[in-house]
């Protein structure tokens, strides 16, 4: 089980990093989303993995999983939505303004010659 979670974090990080290094805004944004998943799972896993013991107090349960990472990750998920929305808006604004969705701001000399409108 630990191996599955750890490898999932690894796979998500690798995929996220690869997409982050692309040249257009959309894959970069998706890459950031993948990295967000990886980071959230990573933080969540710092409470270690517990199955079938949610942190809801009851008289029957004797074991609870660590609630603190869950609280942290919960807000992180919501904030990451806000962050994604801002980044998407910036990317969209740049594209609408210039008809170009490259993330790299190359020097002016090569700008117009090597790139056409997508």
């Amino acid at each position, binding site marked *: 089980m630990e191996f599955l979670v*750890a490898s999932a974090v*690894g*796979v998500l990080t690798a995929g996220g*990093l690869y997409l982050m290094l692309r040249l257009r805004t*959309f894959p970069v944004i998706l890459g950031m989303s993948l990295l967000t998943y990886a980071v959230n799972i990573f933080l969540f896993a710092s409470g270690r993995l517990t199955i079938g013991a*949610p942190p809801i*107090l009851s008289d029957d349960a004797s074991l609870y*999983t*660590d*609630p603190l990472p869950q609280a942290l990750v919960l807000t992180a998920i919501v904030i990451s939505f806000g962050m994604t929305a801002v980044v998407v808006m910036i990317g969209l604004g740049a594209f609408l303004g210039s008809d170009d969705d490259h993330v790299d701001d190359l020097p002016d000399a090569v700008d117009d010659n090597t790139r056409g409108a997508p």
Partner: protein
Amino acid sequence: MSLLIIVALPFFGALLPGLMNSAGRSACAGVTFAVSLAAFIGLLTNLPMVLAGEVVMARVDWMPALGLNFTLMLDGLGFFFALLILGIGLLIIAYARHYLSRDDNMGEFFTYLLLFQGAMVGIVLSDNILLLLVFWELTSLSSFLLIGYWKHLPEGRQGARMALMVTGMGGLSMIGGMVILGQIVGSYDLSVILQNRDLIQADPLYVPALILILLGCFTKSAQFPFHFWLPHAMAAPTPVSAYLHSATMVKAGIFLMARMWPVLSGTPEWFYIVTSAGLITMVLGAVIALFKHDLKALLAFSTVSHLGLITMLLGTGTAFGAMAAVFHILNHATFKAALFMSAGIIDHETHTRDIRRLGGLRKLMPVTFVIVTISALSMAGIPLLNGFLSKEMMLEAAHDTVLFGPHWLVPALATVGSLFSAAYCFRLIDHVFLGPVRNDYPAKPHDPGAGMWIPPAILVVLVVMIGVAPFLAEPFVKLVTASVLGGAAALPEAHIKIWHGPVPALFLSLTAIAGGLFMLALFKPALRLWDATPRPEAKTIFDSLVEAIAKLSRAIILPLHNGAFTRYAALAAVVIIAAGFHAWSTGSVGAATRTVQTAGPVAIAGWLMLVAATAGMVLMHRNRLLSLILIGIVGLMVSVGFVFFSAPDLAMTQFTVEVVTIVLLLLALNFLPNITPVESTVLRRVRDTGVAVAGGLATFALTYYYLLRDAVGTPISEFHLANSYKGGGGTNVVNVILVDFRGFDTYGEIIVLGIAALLIYALTETLLDGPVRARLLNRLPDQPRAGDVHPMMMVVLTRVLMPIVLLVGFYIFWRGHNAPGGGFIAGLIVSIGFVMQYMASGFTWTSSRLRYPYHGVIGAGVLIAGLTGIGSWLVGKPFLTSDFTYVRIPPFDKFELATAALFDLGVFLAVVGAVMLSLESFSRLARRAHASDSEHPMDIDPSREGPSSNATRTVKQGG
């Protein structure tokens, strides 16, 4: 008046001129004058204590742990400088009222002036050296604003920048010196530091501290080789020059040397550095001043020269030198401020400051002539004027000073300096006022109104008064000198007298005056010689130095930071991975302490789907819609994983966020191209794969290692589990942590979320106002639109679902404290309900039914959460302390009422507002792009007439 009020008055008063700006120029100057006058009178109320030899103190603890306290001290020296700053400040304010023209923004000018005044008063009254540094930097900043006040002049901007750079760097090095000093003594209070002369001078760090502090003093007081900024600061309006360069800014360095004199002086290092720097500056400044044709430049270099003189006197380290320095500070402030103001008058009336275009003004401007002549003769050292007295004291001190061996060196150089000083003073009188009246002045000169000449005239009265009756000033000078010496040396017995008998200083003085007259006679050939001599131009050297540093930093930064996002992303990833690898390979890893849990087929299936979807995204990311679907699968698997690992709250949050994120990305994809073209080379993709795989392996290893080991310390979660019900009144520990234990964090987070949504809204507004708007209007959809934009089935279904969604949201919200749910999740669920309406019936229809703007919803949420927190103040508890009680309303069962629920309501509203405002902003863009949005809830409505024509129109327009 308390010292705290004296220092605070100019700062708070700085708010007034701006407010009075529209009330007229006199009101603006009047209020500034009143503020300064109040501070001045406040200072004078402390005079009896100072005269009695007491040290007035005021103290407010600021950061006691750092040794930084708001401690103020008023002794003779501080009083003397504060008197100069406030007194001359009053004259300058009156003068500036008449000097500035109608085009100048007077409120802005007086605001800067008061800020500067406050900072200067702060420096001279500080008892804490860290506080002194704060004020010191404030003078650099406010003088930058003052020097660059005429923003339209390039010289003004360059001069201001140069002054800021030079004095700012000096300030930085002084911070270092002061911190060393504080460390040596163990206290940052001046009153303590000044008692520890032997301790400081015996410390091995004495010399570095001395050099760093002197760098700060020398840059501020324009000592060689940092003298070059002062003449360039002359681009400022004349009142600024008169204020900054006679009595205040440039005297700050002098003040600090005098302040630190008891502990820093007396050593060979101090003597050699300070005396030689002062001597060089004095001679150099005087020589350059003689050959300047701009009146203000001449005065600027003469200021440099006189500052050198004072520095040299402080450098001697003798009590007599200190007394001469104090006296000359006073005299220089009086005659130099008068001269600067007169130069401003001449500039104002004749429209030129070029000495070559002036001459013969004696008859045209008699009042100005008298003022300039008296103050210039005082500066030249003519008897019966105050400059003579202190100059003779200087020559006497120089006569007794031996530097680098030869006995004649210091007196000779001092005499040369005085000689040139006398020469430029005579030149100033002769070339500007004497000689025949010319008929080619740029403007017809005449004496200015009384408002402009009275301030310098008051100073001239002082010049004569001290010069004729030095015994009037002597007690005060001795009082100030005593506080400079601070017990490190005995107060000199000597008296300030006009006639000392035939002492060597008198002969040196006579030589200087005679030589000055001789120089004036020889001025024309001397000027030719001067013009023919090649000299290094300080500004060119400075500019090329700055250019070289800028080039160097560009060479370092540009390869790393060239504007290409991919480059920094890759660099950051590699550096982080390398740092992690270094930590892992050098640290030690303990053995596994947890047993591996076996994974069932469900877990493996979920894992496979997640890995497959991620791999698919990477391989097929060029098809953007497909990759969006795949990321949905990833998100779903993550949610399922949260359920599996006992985190129901997280699962619900992740799942709902997933929905709104996908809707958001779809809205964006509506505009963006659908396909990512192949652009990167194979080599680049191999490189990126390498970085990605390394990063993936690193996070995998890290996660795997710690999942098999228990935490090193005891997590605080035990506390949360134990107190969740007892203290927070809820059984859902995650929710209680969010709204109670760590409510303050949550409060911050909803604010961040709200800011993000407002940012998106603002960006949309900007886009729609700019050129993008036209582009959007002309944009053709890149793929055929659906004919049935608002299908009836979907409309009906979403309408039916809406109350159910709201009910679920309500339920999830209320049960949140005790079971999975809460404000965040309920907010997301309700948002999805709203989004469905937008999707089904379009933007126009939905927003016309919207009663409250989403900004208001965000604001209400943050406000409710904040007020809930503040509410606990009313019962004397800290912010966001929660309380709860159980009530029973028949026929319901007993239930809980908690203030945390109110807080959660705030969270709920903020989340709804933020999510909806973001999505709405995106759809506003979409609406602008294809305007034919229907106001009807659905495209085909049997109750409406002519549905077919409506439908065909929509299809035709593609829209």
